[in-house]
């Protein structure tokens, strides 16, 4: 994880720009996770970003205070897990420093989800008025407990209720309701709202309602399948400024390589960071997400074995080992010097950090009738998964891997600029 960050640091240093230190949190995008008691906030975070197996979820305790979880990815994150009695004035930092709010709602609790929605709308309106650029996501969680039909009905019902509550919200009350609370901060916050927004004005209120209703991204999630990762993927993509650039690179690569789809993954969390966005379906992203996690689970079983030292023959000869260092996938990558000769003017680039012998992993899986899934690691934290026809794979593997080196450089260059 640190590699990614330090790399950003090093390459920017050559451009003599100031770089935030790693122990400083200001460069991290902050995500605030809210929700009703036992709605699954902690599970949503831990199962994805801390690789806690789903079967341990029932044993998580109740979150007592705000917990901050740092996660280094293409964009460094700080996820704030909150206790259920959370109020906005408990935040030590202004809400304007947050990029995203994720509200977790327990889908199976029919009796309490209306209250939960009310609370969400209340928090949302306040947060929005203080920080209009913030993004809202609602995870409609624990979908696994409901049957297929009931699930869809509930999902639609929750969205409808939320929209209704946003319309019915007493906006004017925000201007004078702080008599109950004597917290200085709250007062201050409400004053700011009063300064910024004319909540007496019908048109302003109408505009707020329309924006809020259209801003919320709903996702149905469950810790037992990939829907949770998909939902996080939408959250992360929302915060990636470089997303369009990466996407167009992927699209370019995919079409030039006659592949069907490409997906750029954050390896540790298994969250999709970018895709080429062609014919993408939920089934497809589910399949590739599961593919990646299956392979990583498999790799975990064997990654520790290596040849023991005293070998009888010359197999540990450093030269052969070096060759092995370049698995077929990124063999071409051995030419970083050539590359830098061309741009001699530049004192250094990301490829200076490149270890051409680093054994990046590569994998391909054949599926009948004729699909091949192939994977290449890009950085210690990023991997590309490509979906293509098996005959294309057999006929053009060389071309694809050649194209891949450029895609890889491109993606890494974009990362080093950010």
């Amino acid at each position: 994880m640190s590699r990614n960050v330090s790399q950003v640091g090093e390459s920017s240093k050559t451009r003599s720009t100031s770089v935030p230190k790693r122990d400083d949190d200001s460069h991290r995008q902050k995500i605030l996770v809210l929700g009703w008691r036992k709605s699954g906030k902690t599970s949503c975070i831990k199962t994805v970003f801390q690789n806690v197996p789903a079967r341990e979820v029932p044993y998580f305790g109740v979150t007592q205070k705000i917990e901050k979880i740092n996660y280094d990815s293409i964009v460094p994150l700080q996820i704030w897990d909150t206790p259920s009695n959370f109020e906005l004035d408990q935040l030590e930092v202004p809400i304007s420093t947050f990029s995203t709010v994720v509200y977790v709602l327990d889908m199976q609790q029919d009796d309490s989800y209306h209250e939960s929605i009310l609370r969400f709308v209340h928090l949302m309106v306040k947060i929005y008025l203080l920080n209009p650029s913030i993004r809202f996501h609602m995870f409609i969680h624990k979908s696994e407990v409901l049957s297929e039909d009931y699930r869809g009905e509930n999902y639609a019902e929750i969205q409808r209720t939320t929209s209704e509550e946003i319309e019915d919200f007493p906006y004017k009350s925000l201007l004078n309701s702080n008599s109950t609370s004597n917290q200085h901060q709250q007062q201050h916050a409400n004053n700011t709202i009063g300064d910024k927004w004319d909540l007496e004005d019908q048109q302003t209120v109408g505009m707020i309602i329309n924006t809020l209703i259209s801003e919320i991204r709903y996702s149905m999630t469950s810790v037992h399948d990939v829907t949770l990762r998909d939902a996080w993927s939408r959250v992360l993509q929302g915060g990636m400024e470089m997303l369009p650039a990466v996407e167009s690179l992927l699209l370019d690569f995919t079409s030039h390589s006659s592949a069907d789809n490409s997906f750029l993954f954050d390896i540790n969390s298994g969250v999709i960071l970018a895709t080429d966005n062609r014919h993408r379906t939920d089934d497809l992203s589910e399949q590739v997400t599961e593919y990646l996690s299956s392979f990583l689970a498999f790799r975990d079983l064997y990654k520790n074995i290596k040849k023991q030292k005293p070998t009888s023959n010359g197999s540990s000869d450093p030269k052969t080992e070096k060759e092995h260092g370049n698995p077929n996938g990124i063999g071409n990558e051995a030419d970083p010097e050539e590359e830098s000769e061309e741009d001699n003017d530049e004192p250094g680039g990301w490829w200076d950090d490149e270890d051409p012998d680093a054994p990046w992993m590569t994998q391909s899986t054949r599926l009948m009738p004729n699909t091949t899934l192939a994977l290449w690691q890009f950085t210690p934290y990023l991997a590309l998964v490509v979906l293509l026809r098996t005959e294309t794979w057999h006929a053009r593997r060389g071309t694809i891997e050649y194209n891949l080196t450029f895609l890889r450089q491109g993606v890494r260059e974009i990362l080093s600029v950010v």
Partner: protein
Amino acid sequence: MSSPARKKVLLMGKSGSGKTSMRSVIFSNYTARDTRRLGATIDVEQSAVRFLGGLVLNLWDCGGQNAFVDNYLSSQKDTIFSNVAVLIYVFDITSTEWEGDLRYFEDILFALRENSPEAGIWVLINKMDLVDKEDPKRRKYEERKSDLLGVDERVRKELKDDGIREVLRCFPTSIWDESLYKAWSSIIHTLIPNISLITAHLTYLRDLCLAVEAVLFESDTFLVIAKSGSPLDCDPTDLDEMEIENGGKELDQQRFEKISEIIKGFKKTSSRNHEQYHGFEAKFDDCTVILEPLTKSTYIMIISVDPRVETGALLYNVHQASAHMVEFASKLPLEQQKCGICRHNKELKYAVGTDQDDSILAWDDPRPDL
């Protein structure tokens, strides 16, 4: 050793202990969550599962309600308990009527030991997932296990055991993790004819490939059948030379069960997109791996940490080996013994002439219920 093609496997235990759930997870591609849909088994549900072409498992899933059990022990005694190859008895670790459970178990054990003295007995203590958090050292399991061994000993003494009756074997299981595959692999492993021959060939292939291990899986259940070199569940101190040289000591003891679980999960995802898993190759860290079909009913996994080995070389070797490995699984007796390993194997007479009953579905036949 004669190898009858059909093996009768009894699946017994109290109602609700999870017999049908495990059968569905292992043989019908259910996920652990799907088993919630299953209802109680009424009387005996028979099913046949073809394994490796030659071996057919006749699974008798016996409903566990007391009324049925009383029936098995009285009027149906001969039908149920004769010619049994294996009894799999399932307990629920959370059961509050342990004494009663034990009494029924003792009766069944007695009936079985009497009617099928050579039957292997496997006790699976199920639903371990429900108690593991409170009891991480598994004291309760150990207690139950020693109770069971006590019962077994008593029964054998009473029957004047002449040594043909094997001691029962006990496994902790949960349908939510790989422990279920572990238990079932061990059971299946004892039922496969010519297992030593298969192992010998795998070891030869592994050495040829400069690999750490070559492992054979059944293609539908993905249960591990055999592995090269040291025995499947041997202690890390008993590894053979090739395994030690390649760092086999570092390996997870439960890896095969975990692989079964991983691959089955992925197969299920693929099938939702109307695709079938058909093998993979990979390079990561120091490893070069392939997991490819070997015969119609088996997959082989070869792992090498030798830097000279490429996946292509492994694939070529597997391709060459498959023609000979197919012969083990075929129903025909091996007549032309071209292979050196086979020629020097004394127990070789792989003859399975009796399997001609068409009414029994094979694994690869389309199933009406799925």
